[in-house]
C-alpha cells in the first residue's frame, strides 16, 4: 500500500472510496442531524428542518428537576454502580484466568463465553417474576447488581484478553521483589492495562446508561426511574406534539455518554504503553 501511494490509479480509487464513505456518513448523519436541529426548533416536526429561528426554549422547558435532573442522577447512580461492580469483579476474575494454567480455566471461560450469549432481554420476564418472589422489585441496588451480572461475562472476556496482552516479563520483576499476586496485579498489571480497563468501564457504563428495558421492568417508583424510562413515559404520551422537547431531552441525556466516550478514546490513543514498555 505504502509503496504505490503516489500512483495515479491509486489516487483515483482513493477518491472513489472517499466519496462512497462520505455518502454513507451522510446517511448516518440524517437522524442525528434531526435530533440536533429539532432540539433548537420550537416548531420542530418529525422531519429534518432548518429552524426558522434557533432557540433554546426546548431545553429550558425540559430542564426541570423532576423531568431531567432527577432522572439523570438516577441514571448515573445505576450506571456508575453497575460499572464499578463489574470492573472490580472482572479484573479480579481475569487475573487467575490470565496468569495461571488451572484446570478450571477452560470450563470457566466456556461458561463466561456462554453467558455472553444469553439474550438478556429474553430473560426479563423470568427475572421480573424472580424479583417479585425475592421481594427485590423496585430496589435500585439489586437492579445495579443484576445489570453488573449481565455485563460481567463480556467484561471478564474483554479484561482477560487485555490482561493476556500485558507481558508477564514485566510482572516477573515484581515477583522477584517478593510481591504477592494481588500486589503485582494492583501495582504492575492494572496500571499497564488502564486503557483496556477504561474501555471495559466505559463499555459497561454506556450500556447501563442507555439501558431502557431492565429499569423499565424492574423499577416501579417514578422517582427511582433513570432518564431512559422517564423520557419514554413522558414522550410516549406527548411525543407527537413536542418533538422539539423530545429532541432536547434526548440530547441532554445523550451528552454524558458521548463526552465520556470521547474522553476515553482520546485517552486510549495516547497511552497504549504496553508495547513500548516491553521494547524499551
Amino acid at each position, binding site marked *: *500500500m*505504502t*509503496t*504505490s501511494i503516489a500512483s495515479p490509479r491509486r489516487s483515483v480509487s482513493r477518491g472513489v472510496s*472517499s466519496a*462512497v*464513505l*462520505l455518502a*454513507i*456518513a451522510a*446517511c*448516518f*448523519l440524517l*437522524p442525528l442531524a*434531526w*435530533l440536533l436541529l429539532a432540539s433548537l426548533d420550537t416548531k420542530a*416536526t*418529525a422531519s*429534518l428542518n432548518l429552524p426558522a429561528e434557533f432557540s433554546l426554549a426546548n431545553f429550558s422547558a425540559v430542564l426541570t428537576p423532576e423531568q431531567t435532573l432527577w432522572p439523570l442522577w438516577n441514571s448515573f447512580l445505576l450506571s456508575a454502580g453497575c460499572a464499578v461492580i463489574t470492573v*472490580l469483579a472482572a479484573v*479480579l*476474575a481475569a487475573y*487467575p484466568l490470565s496468569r*495461571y494454567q488451572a*484446570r*478450571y*480455566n*477452560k470450563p470457566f471461560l466456556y461458561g463466561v*463465553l*456462554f*453467558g455472553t*450469549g*444469553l*439474550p438478556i*432481554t*429474553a*430473560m*426479563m*420476564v*423470568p427475572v421480573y*417474576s424472580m424479583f417479585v418472589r425475592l421481594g427485590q422489585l423496585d430496589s435500585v441496588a439489586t437492579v445495579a447488581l*443484576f445489570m*453488573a*451480572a*449481565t455485563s*460481567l461475562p463480556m467484561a471478564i472476556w474483554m479484561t482477560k484478553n487485555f490482561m*493476556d496482552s500485558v507481558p508477564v516479563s514485566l510482572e*516477573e520483576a515484581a515477583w522477584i521483589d517478593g510481591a504477592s*499476586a*494481588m500486589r503485582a496485579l494492583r501495582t504492575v498489571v492494572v496500571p499497564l492495562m488502564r486503557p483496556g480497563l477504561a474501555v471495559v468501564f466505559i463499555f459497561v457504563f454506556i450500556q447501563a446508561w*442507555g439501558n*431502557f428495558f431492565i429499569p423499565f*421492568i424492574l423499577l416501579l417508583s417514578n422517582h427511582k426511574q433513570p432518564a*431512559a424510562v422517564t*423520557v419514554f413515559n413522558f*414522550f410516549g404520551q406527548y411525543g407527537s406534539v413536542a418533538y422539539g422537547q423530545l429532541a432536547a431531552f*434526548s440530547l441532554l*441525556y*445523550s451528552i454524558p455518554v458521548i463526552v465520556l*466516550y470521547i474522553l476515553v478514546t482520546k485517552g486510549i490513543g495516547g497511552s497504549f504503553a504496553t508495547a513500548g514498555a516491553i521494547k524499551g
Partner: protein
Amino acid sequence: MTATPTRTGGARRPPQAARRPAAAGRTPTARRSLRRAVPLVPAVVLLALFMLGPVIWSVYGSFTNASLSGTAASNPRFVGLDNYLALITDPDFPNALWLTVVFLLLSAVIGQNFLGLGLALLTAAAPKAVRSVVATTVVTAWVLPEIVAAFACYAFFSSDGTLNRMLAAVNAEPVDWLFTYPMAAVILANIWRGTAFSMMIYEAALNDVAPEITEAAVIDGAGGWKRLIYVTVPMIRNSISTNLMLITLQTLSVFTLIFVMTSGGPNQRSTTLPIFAYAEAFGLGKVGYGTAIATVMLLIGAVFSILYIRVLKPGDNS
C-alpha cells in the same frame, strides 16, 4: 511455564510444585489452585445469582400458570407442559420466530457485518479527514442511548419524517414506512445503530495484520479483491467469528428499538421474540406463557453460543 507466577507464600512448597503437580502430591496442588481461584469468587457469586438464577427460574416458571394479577400472581400453579403446548398451537409464535430470523440475518449478519467490514477496509486507506467524519457519525449512532436512537429512527421513518421529505424532494410517493414496511424500518434502524461495533472490531483487527504480510501479497501481485479474500480475511478470521457472535446475540436481544418504533405492529408484523414475550407477559398478563417464550429464546441464544464457542475455542491460545 514462565507464564506462571510464584505463589504467594511460596516458601511453604518447593518451586517444582508448579512444574510437576503430580509429583508434588494432590492436596497441596488442589489447595493452591483453590487459593488462586479466590479472586473468582465475586464474579462467580454474581453470575450464579443473576445469570444462572434467572435461567433456572425461567425453566421452572415456564411450567407454571404465573400471571401478573389475580390468584395466579401470588400462587402460581404447576401446569406441566401446558405453556409449551399453547406455544406450538399459537399462530403468533412461528410468526415471531420467523421475524426474529429475518431481523437477525438482514440487520446483523448481512447489514452490520458487511457494512462494518466495508467501512473498516475503506477508512483504512482514506484520508484522515474523511476517516474522522465517518467514524464520528457512525460511532455517534452507536454511542447514543438506545431509546434516543429509537426516537431518532422513529422520527426518520415516520409518515411526516425526514425520509418521506427526501422522497418528496425527488417527486417520489411518500410511504408510511412504520406501517407499510415495519420490518424494513426496524432492520435499517438496527443497521444504523449497530454498524459502528462491527466497524471498530474490524478496524482493530486490520491494525493487527502485520504490514509485511500485505506487502508480501502486493509483491506477489495479489490485487485488491484477491488480497482481501486470500490474505486479509483469513488473517482476521477470529475477529470475524467473534464479531458475528456478538452482533447476532446483541440483535437477538433488541427490544427497545422495535418497541419504540412500531411496538411490534402493525398487526404483529414486526413482533420479534423479545416483543412477543413482553406483550404476552406484561400486555396480556400471562407471565407463565411469556416465561415459556423466554425459555425458547434462551435456548436459541444457547445454541448460538455453543456454535460460536466451537469456532472460537477459548484457551487454545494460552
